[in-house]
């Protein structure tokens, strides 16, 4: 076995030192009765080449194995990834390192994550960003828990029903065993969170609104802030499309206390939904309440600058029973990827890409309108929007997937049963005018 370096001679010599007669002997502290008798029932081992063939066969059972036109987003976005990024992030010094507990030999990871934290705070207009979470949904659930812990009198959290449906489910999962409750804020006929409904809610520790929301609409975060201040509750906001902040006013400028976000758009492949990149940022006031790892600047014994994991007294391995979060491994390498992506596109690139996403989405919307789709909602959006489709669209849509590998929109009915025939479309910088014109022709 090419991963196992032991020769027969090595094994004999080592057994002698270990005082064991055989490899089986090493396990004598395990009662025989509980040992596996006939070996595990697993497939025969594959050589590297058999593995290549088998995995390519599996991969080819996904439509994605061919190039396809991706007109769905809903939390996973189809953006260009510059070639330098997979190269750099795959360098084994990054990829095969552990969590940087020994800072002296981990300055690469630590400086990279410190720069990541800095770029994320800048992107979101926040004071502090953590070193990453699993995804937006779990980061948002952690935000809800922070709000509930900070406001011990309340046991409810108000969540817009235009927060990504999966994220709402995760919050529910996280809250249930502690006896907390998530109450949904309904949306208006414009596809925006209903502020009047929020104002009427009592006993809530915080409010969470996603913007752009699940329909793609840009929410009025200033209005949310006003209500949160009036109620003295934490203002949490979330997002699934990080590139929106290349052009939109950032959450910090609206006074958000906590921001949860998905960073998959920042140079990370879709990979069937994971691993993505959970972003979590907060105000300085909440510094000691944030879950997850943080990298800080430090001095070494010569007075030179360096970086360390810091504020670990918040964490489980120091105050086991009191730890409020169990986050340990996070999505570090994807945070590094995002830092590389943000450094690559830079200030000029992020604005232009963001604008391009909006341009393409606007074009797609008008092309679909020309093909008989009905623009049901009016508010401004970034790169996603909802359209009501003509009756026979679903058949055409399946046909488009099979014949031309075009994924034309996400059916909203499973998420919002009242929205039969409504589809959520997304256009990114990768989709060309020609592809959109072609689609409009096909579905007209």
């Amino acid at each position, binding site marked *: 076995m090419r991963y196992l370096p032991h020769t027969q001679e090595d094994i004999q010599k080592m057994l002698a030192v270990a005082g064991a007669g055989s490899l089986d002997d090493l396990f004598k502290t395990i009662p025989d009765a509980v040992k596996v008798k006939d070996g595990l029932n697993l497939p025969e081992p594959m050589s590297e080449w058999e593995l290549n063939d088998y995995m390519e066969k599996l991969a080819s059972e996904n439509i994605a194995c061919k190039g396809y036109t991706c007109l769905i987003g809903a939390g996973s976005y189809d953006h260009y990834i510059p070639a330098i990024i997979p190269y750099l992030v795959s360098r084994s010094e990054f990829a095969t390192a552990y969590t940087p507990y020994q800072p002296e030999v981990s300055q690469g990871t630590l400086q990279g994550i410190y720069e990541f934290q800095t770029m994320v705070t800048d992107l979101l207009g926040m004071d502090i960003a953590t070193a990453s979470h699993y995804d937006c949904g779990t980061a948002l659930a952690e935000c809800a828990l922070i709000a509930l812990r900070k406001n011990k009198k309340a046991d409810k959290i108000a969540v817009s029903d235009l927060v990504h449906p999966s994220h709402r489910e995760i919050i529910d999962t996280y809250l249930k065993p502690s006896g907390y409750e998530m109450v949904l804020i309904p949306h208006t006929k414009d596809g925006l969170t209903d502020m009047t409904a929020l104002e009427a809610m009592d006993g809530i520790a915080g409010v969470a609104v996603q913007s752009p929301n699940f329909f793609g609409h840009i929410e009025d975060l200033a209005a949310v802030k006003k209500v949160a201040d009036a109620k003295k509750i934490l203002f949490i906001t979330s997002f699934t499309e990080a590139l929106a902040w290349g052009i939109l006013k950032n959450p910090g400028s609206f006074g958000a206390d906590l921001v949860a976000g998905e960073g998959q758009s920042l140079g990370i492949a879709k990979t069937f939904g994971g691993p993505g990149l959970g972003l979590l940022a907060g105000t300085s006031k909440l510094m000691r309440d944030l879950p997850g790892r943080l990298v800080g600047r430090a001095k070494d*014994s010569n007075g030179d600058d360096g970086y360390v994991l810091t504020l670990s007294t918040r964490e489980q391995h120091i105050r086991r029973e009191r730890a409020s979060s169990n986050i340990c491994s996070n999505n570090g390498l994807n945070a590094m990827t995002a830092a590389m992506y943000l450094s690559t596109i830079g200030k000029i690139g992020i604005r232009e890409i963001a604008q391009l996403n909006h341009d393409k989405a606007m074009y797609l919307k008008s092309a679909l309108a020309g093909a008989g789709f009905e623009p049901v909602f009016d508010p401004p959006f970034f790169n996603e929007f909802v359209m009501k489709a003509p009756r026979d669209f679903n058949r055409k849509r399946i046909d488009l997937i099979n014949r031309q590998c075009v994924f034309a929109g996400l059916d909203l009915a499973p998420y919002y049963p009242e929205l039969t025939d409504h589809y959520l479309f997304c256009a990114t910088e990768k989709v060309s005018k020609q592809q959109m014109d072609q689609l409009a022709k096909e579905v007209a």
Partner: protein
Amino acid sequence: FNEPNVWDKSREGRCAISLPKADVERSPLDPALTGDTPNLPQLSELDVVRHYTRLSQWNFGVDSGMYPLGSCTMKYNPKTNEVQAARQGFAGAHPLAGDECSQGALRLMYDLERSLAEITGFDAVTLQPAAGAHGELTGMLIIHAYHAKQGRQRSKIIIPDTAHGTNPASATLCGYKSVNLKSGPKGILEPEAVAEIMDEETAGIMITNPNTLGLFEENIKEICEIVHAKGGLVYGDGANMNAIMGVVQPGKLGIDVLHLNLHKTFSTPHGGGGPGSGPVAVNEKLTPFLPVPRVEKELDTFKFVTDCPDSIGRLHTFYGHFGVMIKAYAYILTMGAQGLLDTSRLAVLNANYIKESLKGTLNLPYDRPCMHECVFNDAKQQEYHISTMDMAKRLLDYGFHPPTVYFPLVVDGAFMVEPTETESKEDIDQFIDAVKAIAKEAQTDPEKLTSAPVLPKVTRLDEVAAARKPCLRG
């Protein structure tokens, strides 16, 4: 050489990307909605490449040398696994493409679940948890949901002093109060001690087996029976599964629910702190509580199923870390049953070889046959005023990553070594020689240890000062 922060290398007007051309007309957003452009660094492509190449050069990875970090299982991460995960059909797959368009991904997940169920001896597996601690949380949520379903919730959970660090926090998230349980003089749990504190207010016990002393919990079956008798459940922390693959199936010991770390046992890279993946295996009794969506097979077609009324719900926006699952599955397919058994045998051989070779040099608080790791401490070095930390930092100068230090808490000044099976005898011998040389230096030249490390880019960093006045952004 020093590499400045990325923003210090920025110059107005540079851009390391070739901007996609606009083929549709510009549609400006309402200026009321737009903000200032984020002040990201402006670099050329070469600037970016050099910046991260240099950062990488300050890092130590498994490819750089032995990484004997206890309880972390820093084994070799095969490159072929990265090739598999990068295939366009996987990396390019959209999570909402629909079951029909995602059969390859679903089949892989289904088969990986079945393989993990076989390795652990459980009935069902969920791949959704995104990391080990997330798996623990999932397991605790399942225990919580089980008791809820029984009609009466419980308030406490027993956690031994030899359990992993994140266990209490995971329990707290479910509202359980942790009850500490001391291990016995042999470093393992004694059934009597469990029986004494197990009651009908206690939801169960969280056992790490092999435990964090690297010892197999020999009384595990008896302990499970005690807990079950009082209506409790047994949670197994499978982070140390690398010791027992093909030797013992935890599901057959009476454990009810167990999480695995694909990034430990199944060779996927740690990435300097993730992404990992923490699947959870359960017995039949707990299967209805697994998170949704579940992957099911009908004839030769696979589909996601969400209609599970007793499920604890969803834990990840999509299906967990699919990219990590690919790598772990590639590893299992490469190893086969015999390969995994050999893996555990050689991991245990390596640990015992180190234990026996170094027990004259370092103090060994529990001198028993160990599993995949062994725990020393600095008792013999204290007379020279040399601590575990000093020895760990000095190892850096010898070209080794230090072991885990000051964990588990049950050993004072712990020095916890897990070599893993992918280290060869020669590399281990070099490590042993280095530790011996350092122990000698502790006597003859202690200054060399207290001022270590001298070779890395920075010397010892002041973590206390950094935490007192945190600077978390540039």
